[in-house]
């Protein structure tokens, strides 16, 4: 049974403010040197799945720059490999080309899925980080004879509530899905099953469901296929119990990064290799007089100042007498002397001039847009 991975590189429910103004959620930096999508694609590759289609919608240039031809993920393959699927500018509907929903996104790329040798599809979205055994999932799906297997979790990952906008799924005693609703409240109930966006389905069934839905003008996979057809289709649940990060708000993004400062979390997240684009940077350089505590530092950095409880991406310079605390600093950022940052997210290519001070709060970090000069 050969598997095709389909990845949605965008999220319809995210609210990441300036962070996704110029990029899609999948290419958001994470844990220093990675982009969010690296975790998912590495998960596929580590499970031997080398046939991956990434659906792009808009703002995908940074994603394409990052993935390139797929070299670093070993995805330049004669059979399968990585394809980033961009929407046609001229859509048949004559609209501006933004998909009306996930069903239309799938429909517009059917030509590519059809050519894949995979006959089982694992759909996933890039906005949630996890590490799942896709082979076990696929085997479970095949053994259950279900039409669709939907992966859910009961984890809240320290959040008080189920994340806004995710699908809450209801299963009967046979583990069959009978209802689904989108979380719009601060639902805090324990034992709520919420979807991590992963579904397993035969390619042929997916193709016919998508074609049917399109014919009826139904464009949302969750609402119009999973929920609407739950009485006709046998949709089985599969619980994911591992570690998890949900990134759909700025505070969540900050928290996700901070999770990597925890050794246990790090060990679980990196127990298999996570691949990312190589930058050929030099190792990090710690100068005399620097002070670094409980932080992640990436290659190419040069640290002359102080870094505490922070996640620093590649090629960042932190000058003398500067203090960076509780912050996420993206690549190619230059922090000059005497700067003080606390609870700040600096996007890439930012320059912070001498003696500037910025400080936000854990629940509302200051976000500095890409290429700003402060």
């Amino acid at each position, binding site marked *: 049974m050969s598997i095709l991975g389909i990845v949605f590189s965008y999220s319809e429910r995210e609210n990441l403010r300036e962070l996704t103004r110029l990029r899609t959620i999948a290419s958001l930096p994470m*844990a220093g040197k990675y982009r969010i999508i690296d975790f998912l694609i590495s998960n596929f590759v580590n499970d031997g799945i080398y046939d991956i289609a990434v659906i792009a919608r808009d703002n995908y240039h940074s994603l394409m720059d990052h993935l390139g031809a797929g070299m670093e993920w070993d995805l330049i393959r004669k059979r399968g490999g990585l394809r980033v699927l961009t929407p046609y500018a001229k859509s048949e509907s004559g609209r501006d080309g933004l998909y009306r929903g996930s069903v239309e996104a799938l429909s517009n790329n059917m030509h590519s899925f059809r050519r894949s040798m995979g006959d089982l599809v694992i759909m996933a979205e890039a906005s949630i980080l996890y590490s799942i055994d896709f082979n076990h999932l696929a085997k479970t799906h095949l053994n259950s004879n279900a039409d669709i297997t939907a992966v859910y979790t009961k984890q809240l990952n320290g959040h008080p509530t189920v994340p806004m906008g995710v699908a809450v799924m209801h299963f009967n005693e046979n583990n069959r899905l009978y209802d689904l609703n989108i979380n719009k409240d601060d639902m805090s109930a324990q034992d709520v099953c919420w979807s991590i966006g992963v579904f397993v389905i035969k390619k042929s069934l997916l193709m016919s469901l998508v074609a049917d839905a399109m014919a009826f003008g139904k464009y949302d996979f969750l609402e119009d296929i999973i929920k609407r057809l739950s009485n006709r289709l046998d949709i089985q649940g599969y619980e994911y119990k591992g570690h998890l990060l949900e990134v759909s708000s700025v505070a969540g993004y900050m928290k996700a990064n901070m999770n990597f400062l925890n050794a246990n979390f790090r060990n679980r997240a990196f127990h298999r*290799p996570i691949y990312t684009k*190589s930058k*050929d940077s030099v190792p990090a*350089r*710690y100068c005399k007089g*620097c002070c*670094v*505590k409980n*932080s992640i530092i990436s290659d190419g950095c040069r640290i002359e100042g102080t870094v505490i409880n922070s996640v620093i991406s590649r090629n960042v310079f932190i000058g003398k007498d500067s203090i960076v605390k509780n912050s996420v600093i993206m690549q190619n950022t230059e922090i000059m002397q005497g700067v003080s940052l606390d609870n700040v997210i600096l996007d890439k290519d930012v320059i912070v001039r001498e003696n500037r001070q910025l400080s936000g709060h854990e629940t509302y970090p200051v976000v500095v847009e890409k290429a700003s000069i402060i």
Partner: protein
Amino acid sequence: MICGQKKEMIAMLLAGGQGSRLGILTQDVAKPAVPFGGKYRIIDFPLSNCTNSGIDTIGVLTQYRPLELNAHIGSGQPWDLDRLYGGVFILPPYMGGKGGEWYSGTANAIYQNMNFIDLYNPQYVLILSGDHVYKMNYDLMLDFHKHKNADCTIAVIKVPWEEASRFGVMNADEDSRIFEFEEKPQEPKSNLASMGVYIFRWKKLKEYLIKDEEDENSDNDFGKNLIPQMLKACEKLYAYEFKGYWKDVGTIASLWEANMDILDPNVPIELDDPPWRIYSRSSNMPPQYIGENAVLSNSSIADGCNVEGKVENSILFPGVTVGKDAVVSNSILMPGVSVSEDALIEYAIVAENARICKSARVGEWKKPEIGKQHREITVIGGSVTIGERAVVPAGTTIDESIIEEVGE
């Protein structure tokens, strides 16, 4: 074989040496595969120089434990050397119709691979060796070679007069034409030392390789035989002076020094040089984590490291862990080394995957400190374990695990 146009110049990299002066560091790997500078291997320097100089076809001549070197070079992709026509090729000795022959000398290694060179039908051949650390634009040297209409151009570097007798020294006239070559002269007439980097007109080189091979008394070595033969025949040999950082890393002391040079802002070997990047194979490790109690100073630390202790004037390769209260100073910790709590490492080179257990002391120095240059370097071999509270005195070389506590 894909046909393509001829290449103007291809490079042949002599990576065959065992590098026995590096002792246990080259027990399992060829010298060019020895780790250097926090994430590189020595061979990354000539390979990256080639890429940055626009040379896309390189034969790597190797016969000594090539497994790591093979795995490191792979398809050549990290150096952008995975080419359809050309690229990087490992060239081991092989059997011909009459049985096999190991490479008997540097010139013989090239002689045995003349077929390979002819495949690309180059005008010029660049000969490199795999045991020097330097950043050099070979394209500028080729310009010089063409300008002089030379048969052979030898890159030279000024060395202190007192060290000149350790090198092959070129005596050249004011036009840079070489009239004499002395191998390790007692009384050097010049301080221009050969860097082991040659450009030859390929036709001329081929002619001399064949001649040299016919000479039964020859050691088939470039410096000892081929260059003197060419000088004797009045061929046009020129010296091209290179001004920059260049270091032979063929001994433990020079390997340690060259690594320390990276940490010294006054030494002109800047690795963070985007227009002249040194490429290497990525380790695919997570970013480094620096713990709550870490103390860092003047050090270079690579991906995958986990530092809880004190690190100063040191270079940590990927995947090194340094436990709480451990102290690493003036040392080089190669990939995968683990240093447990409270251990001490001073003036040492610790090879890949060695384990320094709790409270062990490596490179301990009993004599009064006289000065950095007199401190002897301690070497811990690959995958060696230094047991709890074991003491390894300064200047020793350990190639077997020490489990028991060792006194003096």
